[in-house]
């Protein structure tokens, strides 16, 4: 490393020029990203990052263009990342989605944060606390980032989807008065983004089953895994990609509530609460009209096929207290009524009957026809 020997004035002038040079060019290149603190000075480099204590590679690279085109593209870095006063950012706090990000929510003029959704989420079955106390095995529960994947780069134009032409035509009408293009596009996207779900039914099922098909995880919370949904005709339609095929959200999210507010079936707001069933199956506020003629008898039945809880309840003697300490067994004995056990047993018996019948009948047929073939060939050969 070598050092320059310059006069102080020259140094001062050069520094000033550099500052003007840098501070002038970066924002000018990307007017979309309001990087008033010039974070991109360092964070625009792809190699920017470090290895943490566990050896995991942390990437701190920000792709300006992608970020500018994302739903969070209007925000300053400091709006979400708290504790950036020092470089390097040793004081930085983990991003909390309930942070107020200094955007004014236009309908109430209050400072915006995602706290509305977070509060709903905390009150749902997926919330970490119940009655103020933290649930056991709370680490199993999904946090914001589990479902809202790649929240930083979710492009705001992504869901214009099939109707690119329609969106262009609509935008032309908006921009007749709202002439600033960038504003008009963001507003249009913000709106249309919410007119349909980001994920299709198949993707929703993949997301939900990522936890709900994990046997150990479900057992910790006294739940049975939901592969029995995959035995239903509902899932057959999802497999084919049928429009409006019923996925998890269609039956478990209360109508006119958000996905963040899934409640247990014992809660009157839940669509699978027994009194709400007929409405859930027949007509969900006009949005999904799947079984319009559904009767109470039909709708009150069990949708997912009988699973491991029915098996446990059928096998165990209900009069004996639960000695295993296993949460699933306990809940099986509590939740499955005698009627359900009877139905489970009937279905099991029919299945077994058919399995035996098929084995016997088809087995006999194979034997019979093989014998016929062998004997016929033998007879034909003898006559030759």
């Amino acid at each position, binding site marked *: 490393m070598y050092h320059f020997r310059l006069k102080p004035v020259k140094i001062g002038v050069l520094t000033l020029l550099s500052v003007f040079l840098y501070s002038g060019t970066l924002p000018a290149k990307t007017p979309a990203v309001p990087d008033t603190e010039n974070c991109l000075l360092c964070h625009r480099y792809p190699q920017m990052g470090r290895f943490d204590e566990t050896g995991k590679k942390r990437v701190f690279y920000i792709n300006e263009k992608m970020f500018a085109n994302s739903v969070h593209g209007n925000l300053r870095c400091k709006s979400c990342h708290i504790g950036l006063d020092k470089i390097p950012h040793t004081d930085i706090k983990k991003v909390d989605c309930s942070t107020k990000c200094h955007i004014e929510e236009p309908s109430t003029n209050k400072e915006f944060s995602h706290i509305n959704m977070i509060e709903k989420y905390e009150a749902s079955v997926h919330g970490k606390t119940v009655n103020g106390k933290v649930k056991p095995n709370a680490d199993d529960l999904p946090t914001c980032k589990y479902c809202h994947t790649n929240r930083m780069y979710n492009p705001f134009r992504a869901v214009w989807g099939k109707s690119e032409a329609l969106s262009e035509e609509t935008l032309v009408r908006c921009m007749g008065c709202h002439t600033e293009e960038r504003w008009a596009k963001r507003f249009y996207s913000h709106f249309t983004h919410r007119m349909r779900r980001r994920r299709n039914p198949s993707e929703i099922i993949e997301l939900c089953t990522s936890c709900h098909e994990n046997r150990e995880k479900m057992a910790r919370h006294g739940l049975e895994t939901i592969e029995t949904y995959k035995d239903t005709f509902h899932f057959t339609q999802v497999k084919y990609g049928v429009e409006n095929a019923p996925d998890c959200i269609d039956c478990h999210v209360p109508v006119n509530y958000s996905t963040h507010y899934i409640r247990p079936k014992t809660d009157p707001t839940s669509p699978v609460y027994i009194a709400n069933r007929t409405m859930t199956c027949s007509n969900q506020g006009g949005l999904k009209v799947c079984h319009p003629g559904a009767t109470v008898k039909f709708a009150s039945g069990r*949708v997912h096929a009988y699973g491991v809880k029915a098996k446990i309840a059928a096998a165990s003697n209900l009069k004996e207290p639960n000695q295993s300490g296993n949460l699933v067994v306990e809940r099986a004995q509590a939740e499955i009524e005698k009627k359900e056990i009877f139905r489970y047993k009937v279905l099991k018996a029919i299945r077994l009957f058919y399995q035996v019948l098929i084995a016997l009948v088809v087995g006999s047929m194979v034997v019979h026809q093989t014998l016929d073939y062998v004997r016929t060939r033998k007879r034909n050969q003898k006559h030759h």
Partner: protein
Amino acid sequence: MFNASETEEKIAPAKTINGRSENESDREKRYFFRLNLSERLQHLIFVGCFLVLVITGFMTKLPKNMLDWLGETGNTVFYYRSMLHRAAGVIMILTSVYHIYYLIVKPAGRRLLLDMLPKVRDITDMISNIRYYLGLEENPPEFDRFSYKHKLEYGALFAGTTLMSVTGMLMWTEHHWSKFLIDISTLIHGMEAILACLAIMIWHLYEVHLRPHKFPIDHMWITGVIDEDEMKAEYSIHYKKIMNDPELQKIYIKRSDKIEQGI
């Protein structure tokens, strides 16, 4: 058992090789009806419906990774699958209803029903036939128009079609019934489908495709007839009854210019 008649003496004793007699020339061969036109049509429609139902039905059991490549077209494919399945089901049910009418009202149908009724001799025939397969007997038993094989298959057809139709209709009108009933219907419909498919593939298709003298395919389902040699070999009792009764000959023997009438 049968009166020796002039006609019997004229006919050379059956000496068959592969079901073909080496004594008679083709010009003098008689053909005997096994299925009349109505029965052939009923069978043909039933076959068509069965194929459509099996394919569209088992499409619902395909695993997800096989269906992913359908992509956007999956929605349309499923729509037509569902529609075809129901349409074929309705046609099958209507054909079956006609068949019951045929069995009760039409003379040929009544004959079919009477001949198809199970008798005690069917059990002895079955035992005897299996003994023949095992080499414990020199010759197979003699069969009338329908052997125990036909009767078993016909009975299975009756039972299977009834079950499938009833459970199918229940599922089609599912919202009227309790979920438990629908669960039972779905289970039976699926299991019976497996049973019927395997039965057809292993039993029936062997009978009509793979039996050595029928290979590659028996044409009887189109023409309705079998030749005299096969008649004598397979259905000898029926054959003797026909040759002894002019009325039966009118029904069962195919008329053509080359064949003398009234023998």
